[in-house]
């Protein structure tokens, strides 16, 4: 019994040490163009990296101008378990753009958010 307890305690301690990565619901980790960033020239695609692996079938990204006009863009594609990319339909003219995303993480939980970036002339 004591031996089993020791093994269990060791296993728990190992779990504690292993549990260092930040997980839970998927939140936006990094984006390209960056959140709030100003880029020179139109990007050809948007790249969104999340804090957790996500489900492509229930995830999507929309982009619109600051005035709310939708910008044509391809379907969001999962290029890594936690990275979505979206090809832009046309070159973006200078101005501010709003990206809205919604994802479902592999633990079934939905999250969503928006961010802005600016294309400088």
């Amino acid at each position: 019994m004591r031996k089993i307890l020791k093994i269990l305690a060791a296993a728990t301690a190992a779990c504690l040490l292993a549990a260092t990565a930040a997980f839970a619901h998927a939140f936006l980790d990094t984006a390209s163009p960056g959140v709030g960033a100003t880029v020179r020239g139109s990007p050809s695609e948007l790249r969104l990296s999340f804090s957790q692996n996500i489900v492509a079938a229930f995830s999507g990204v929309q982009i619109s101008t600051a005035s709310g006009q939708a910008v044509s863009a391809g379907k969001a594609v999962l290029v890594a378990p936690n990275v979505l990319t979206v090809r832009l339909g046309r070159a973006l003219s200078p101005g501010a753009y709003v990206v809205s995303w919604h994802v479902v993480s592999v633990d079934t939980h939905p999250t969503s958010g928006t961010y802005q970036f600016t294309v400088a002339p």
Partner: protein
Amino acid sequence: MSIFQILVLAAAAAEEAPFQADMGSMPPESGDGFITIFHFLFLARWIHFAAVFILFGSSFFWFYMGHERSESGLGGLPRALRATKILLCVAAPIAAISGVAWLAGILANMTSGFSNVVDLETWRLFFFETQFGPVSIVRLALLAAAIVVVALPWRNRAWFSALLHIGAFLLITQAWLGHAAEGGAGLYGTVMITAYCVHALAAAAWVGGLPPLLFALVEQRRFNPHDARDWTLDILSRYSLMAMAAVPLIVLSGIANAAFRVAGAFDKLFYTGYGDVLFAKVGVVALMLGLAAFNRFVAMPRLRAASLKGMGQINRLRVSVACELALGALVLAVAAVLGITPPPQ
């Protein structure tokens, strides 16, 4: 702390925007009438947990009680056995309905509305285009199997064994429908899933074993005080042997689960809604453990020492086992909330 308070806490935690707005947030609770998706998920999960705990723990009970208990001869508990069979026959369809409701709740939550639950294409995506789709199909098959088994006319040991295994697989597959699934396919993810499964199985053995234990204690009223005392002591020793193996597993795997959720930074539990719900759960479990320890280390020796007053002691034991069971149901309610509360990051 009442369930209502826990619900309010959890709802507040779910609404709390944990990070800068542009890093994302949980969907706002759309006012789908009186019952929100959150309440729906909570209820479905709670009822499902309870039903599956019974499928596993209550059928498991008869395997560590020894053969003679399930027979009608000396020391047998025919009434407790029959009551357990009825309980299992009720638990199987309830597990199935609540299991389907849980999946529907997940889908509604993912697509932020109950309206998509009737859309076949959304279900196709759910089952075939997600990581949790295949697990959901397996769970539906298990639930169907449970209903078939309880409809069978032969209620023998194999019948109990079938329900025990179905219950075990339902508990294990639960791991992929929640926070434990976020670790990925590697060793890290495997350890995470294992910790969850150990926790669920050990807890189900403990709490799910309480209803048949209660039935068995009630049945002692039929016997003369001397036999009742001896048999009660035997039943309690067998149950407590199982419980003393289960409790360390529950506590250690519970700590491991919490460590995974907060990524090793336990201080986060002190200022997040997730931490509040978790501490509520720990509090109720501590109460249960206190009661269980009282039953094992105070009430049992007293019963052993009692002579003809044995019956009175058994009656009191019945009350404390019933209280332990009620607390167990409360823990499941808190667990149902915990799994739909975003862990701190």
